[in-house]
């Protein structure tokens, strides 16, 4: 079953919220360094799937295998330390803190600065260096002293990604990173995402089909609580069931 280069396997995952069946047997695999897109209509359960992989919710049944280890039901902080990191569909950062502090919060966690009673967050050169690197990568270096809540919408979304990257993950889950952006902004954001996730594994939820087909190696379609099909962008584009279930809806 398990191929050596599968970094993540989602096996027969079910999730219901007090009777509401959201996921009904989700199965898919992600290879190391793959760019994997998850698409599906509103309410299909995409975010729920991310919530389960990243530890926010436990699956009702089924399992999540990360690097050969069953991680289903583990807490978010444990998974983060195992180098899984996710972003949020609705920006979920520290609004009253500046950009630098937002990113440093994640970076310092892995450098003995979680609960330290003597050292200050900025006291380790390595932490400051990594923080600056991430800020430069996502293009926020210029506004690092600005409070998160004072950023433009596009910058907020970039910060969401920066915070996600701050824990130096190997598996990155991005939940609609370009939602609400203009065409140009989306183009820029995707270029940036492509750059920052190079040599990492990415799972991205995305509605914009142009983005999906240009960025992803593999696409999975989530429909009615399970994966309709997983395949190359070509296969997905030409699949009749996908056209019926999803792409058709986009057109109207």
């Amino acid at each position, binding site marked *: 079953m398990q191929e050596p280069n599968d970094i993540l396997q989602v096996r027969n995952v079910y999730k219901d919220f007090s009777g509401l069946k959201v996921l009904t047997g989700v199965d898919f695999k992600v290879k190391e360094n793959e760019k994997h897109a998850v698409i599906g209509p509103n309410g299909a359960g995409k975010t729920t799937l991310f919530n389960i992989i990243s530890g926010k919710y436990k699956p009702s049944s089924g399992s999540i295998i990360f690097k050969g280890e069953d991680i289903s039901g583990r807490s*978010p902080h444990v998974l983060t330390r195992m180098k899984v990191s996710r972003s949020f569909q609705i920006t979920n950062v520290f609004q009253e803190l500046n950009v630098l502090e937002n990113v440093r919060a994640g970076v310092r966690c892995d450098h003995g600065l979680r609960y330290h009673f003597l050292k200050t*967050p900025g006291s380790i050169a390595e932490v400051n260096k990594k923080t600056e690197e991430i800020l430069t990568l996502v293009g926020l270096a210029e506004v690092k002293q600005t409070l998160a809540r004072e950023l433009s919408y596009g910058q907020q979304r970039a910060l969401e990604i920066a915070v996600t990257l701050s824990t130096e993950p190997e598996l990155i889950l991005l939940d609609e990173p370009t939602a609400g952006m203009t065409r140009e902004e989306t183009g820029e954001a995707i270029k940036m995402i492509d750059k920052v996730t190079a040599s990492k594994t990415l799972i991205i939820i995305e509605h914009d089909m142009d983005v999906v087909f240009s960025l992803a190696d593999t696409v999975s379609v989530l429909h009615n609580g399970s994966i309709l099909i997983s395949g190359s962008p070509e296969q997905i584009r030409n699949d009749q069931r996908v056209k019926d279930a999803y792409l058709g809806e986009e057109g109207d």
Partner: protein
Amino acid sequence: MKQRSHASLLAWGTLILVAGVLLPLAVRQYQLAILTEIIIFALFAVSYNLLLGYAGLLSFGHAMFFGTGAYTVAIVINHIPSLSFFGAVILSLSVTTITGLVVGSFLLRHKGTPFALLTLAFNALFYAIATKWHSITGGDDGLSIFRPDINIGFAQLSTSSIPAFYYITFIIIGLVMLFSWYFTRTAMGQTVLLMRENEERMKFLGYNTNVSRLILFVFTGFLAGLAGIFYALFFQFTSITAISIDMSTIVLLMVIIGGTGSFVGPIIGACVYIYLQDFLSDITDRWPFIMGLIFIFMILYVPKGLSGLIYSLIERLRGRRHLSRKVEIAE
């Protein structure tokens, strides 16, 4: 900007140090005793504000630590005759810290109303133990103690006079208070602030927020315990008041009067509360009534407390926009 704030910090520090050292020469003994009490309650209030202001946790049971410190120091001094001053303090602090760990482990998963109610319930339990366990705590009669002298190898320092105890309190609690201020800028202090800001995201950044809450709870219990120890040593007496829910309410009022939005707020609150109580109880028997009215007025019309009032006055004088950040977050 940065340098100027460092310079003004240094200036303030020096001023407080000089004033603290010279004051006993200038004021009457009675005033000095009041000042000692203020310093003790200032630490209690600062520790409470680390929960309320910095972590956003409303506790109705902070007196359980204050009282545990006060009772333990009285009990160990009475039962271990040769115990030194610092021996008694350290032993009592250890007991308070363990108490914090035990109670904290029941509370670490809770926030908001459940947290508040649980702290209230624990405080009631501690109070019940103190009243009923007569053979150890003296029940309603309380416990009298003598302050041990301080032994520093070659010399014996008497702690019995008011100025002597004032100096000891000023130095020890002053240093601990300084550390508490520094704590708010450390990684742990900032972790607490970040959790108040967005606990969910902290989890997704690799922080075990339950452990963070436990650490903070134990630390604030430790500080409150130290205040309680000095309270007992100061009055040379521990009574049921020290561990009562009244005492938890008093510290809450001090912090609210002073303001939760800054480090110094609770210190101002402790000053005002103790002076007011002293002043009013001199002129009328109905002083609790008058204080009650003052508190209602404060909470209704000065919700950010005196420190908030002072800050916004300063901002206005400087003609600057008022900063709406709740607690200053430093680098």
